[in-house]
């Protein structure tokens, strides 16, 4: 039978479109406008063309912050996604422990970013913090304010502590949605634990994993508050990620033109990566025609 196409339903998305226009499209347009001009405040603008884009593209500072950010996102995704899956697999499926587990897992997600940063700032201090003190007692020369590697480990640990539970909860939602019949069929076939995971659980978690990867990538690529509170982007510039650099440029130096150009390039990179992740994960395992 011929399928009926009725596009009138698209009008239903008009309210969302208006909301997105006010919250995202108009600010984005403004940033584009700023990126081709220079301003000294008081709503006075001077045409600069593509000058700021050229400056940002050639800037060593931008390149370094970009690589730092990509490395950070890669590390946190490489830790959080497998760890989240393992935690979700280990979580109970029935009984009172389910609620307890869900509440405990949700707790880190409820803590505001700056509070997480403050908690870890104290936690990592050698004089009063449990982590810093323990590390020192074990003979490690741990100091996140002096050593770039320690600063990196601390920032990665913060992100893993804060956001792995989101991945675990998403995976758990995917796991509990798998009908029992799949497991029964696997049991009849004598499938191993690995085979059950590889051919039943993992494919069924595909969609939630897509959401987890997208959310975690975008969020880690835009990380600002935790490193700002804990390390302030240092020592040196070792934890100065793109967003920290952007804020320094826009608010610290009031270089609105270059900051706007950097924002647009930053936005395009996020858009590209998100599209790649989305496309790869939505097409994974589908039959090609």
């Amino acid at each position, binding site marked *: 039978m011929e399928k009926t*196409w009725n*596009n009138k339903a698209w009008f239903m998305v008009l309210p969302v479109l208006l909301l997105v226009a006010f919250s995202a499209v*108009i600010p984005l*347009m*403004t940033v*584009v*406008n*700023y990126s*081709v*001009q220079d*301003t000294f405040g008081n*709503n006075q*603008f001077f*045409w600069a*063309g*593509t*000058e700021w*884009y*050229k400056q940002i*593209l*050639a800037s060593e500072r931008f390149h370094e912050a970009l690589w730092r950010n990509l490395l950070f996102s890669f590390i946190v995704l490489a830790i959080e996604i497998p760890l989240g899956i393992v935690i979700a697999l280990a979580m109970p499926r029935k009984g009172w422990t389910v609620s307890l587990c869900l509440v405990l897992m949700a707790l880190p997600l409820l803590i505001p970013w700056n509070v997480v940063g403050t908690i870890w700032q104290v936690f990592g201090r050698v004089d009063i913090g449990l982590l810093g003190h323990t590390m020192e007692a074990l003979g490690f020369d741990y100091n996140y304010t002096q050593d770039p590697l320690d600063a990196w480990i601390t920032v990665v640990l913060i992100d893993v502590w804060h956001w792995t539970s989101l991945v675990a909860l998403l995976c758990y939602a995917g796991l509990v949605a798998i009908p029992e019949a799949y497991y029964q069929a696997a049991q009849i076939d004598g499938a191993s634990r690995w085979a059950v995971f590889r051919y039943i659980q993992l494919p069924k978690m595909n969609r939630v994993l897509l959401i987890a990867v997208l959310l975690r990538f975008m969020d880690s690529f835009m990380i600002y508050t935790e490193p700002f509170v804990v390390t302030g982007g240092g020592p040196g510039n070792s934890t100065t990620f793109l967003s920290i650099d952007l804020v320094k440029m826009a608010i610290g130096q009031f270089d609105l033109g270059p900051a706007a150009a950097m924002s647009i*390039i930053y936005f*395009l990179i996020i*858009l*590209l990566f998100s*599209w790649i992740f989305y*496309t790869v994960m939505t*097409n994974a395992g*589908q039959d*090609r*025609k």
Partner: protein
Amino acid sequence: MDLSWMAWTWPTALFFVTIALLIASMGVWEYYSPGGGARYGVLRIETTRGDRLFISLLGSAFIHLAWLGLIGPNLWWALAISFAYALCVFRWV
């Protein structure tokens, strides 16, 4: 309504009007030929006309940035390459 805070310029206004017209023309195209024209192209992924426009625009942005970063500020060639790229995307992706 005072929109001076948005710091509009003619080139940026023209840029956004072009994007808006492209999206509107996709709507008209969809009206006369519904279904999105979904197909599997050279990337071996299913794309609709909207996907192809998105790939064209995103690719064009990177073509312009690459041209600006590697060659120079004269972006007319980058625009020409972007047109050719968009045609290829609409034809084969």
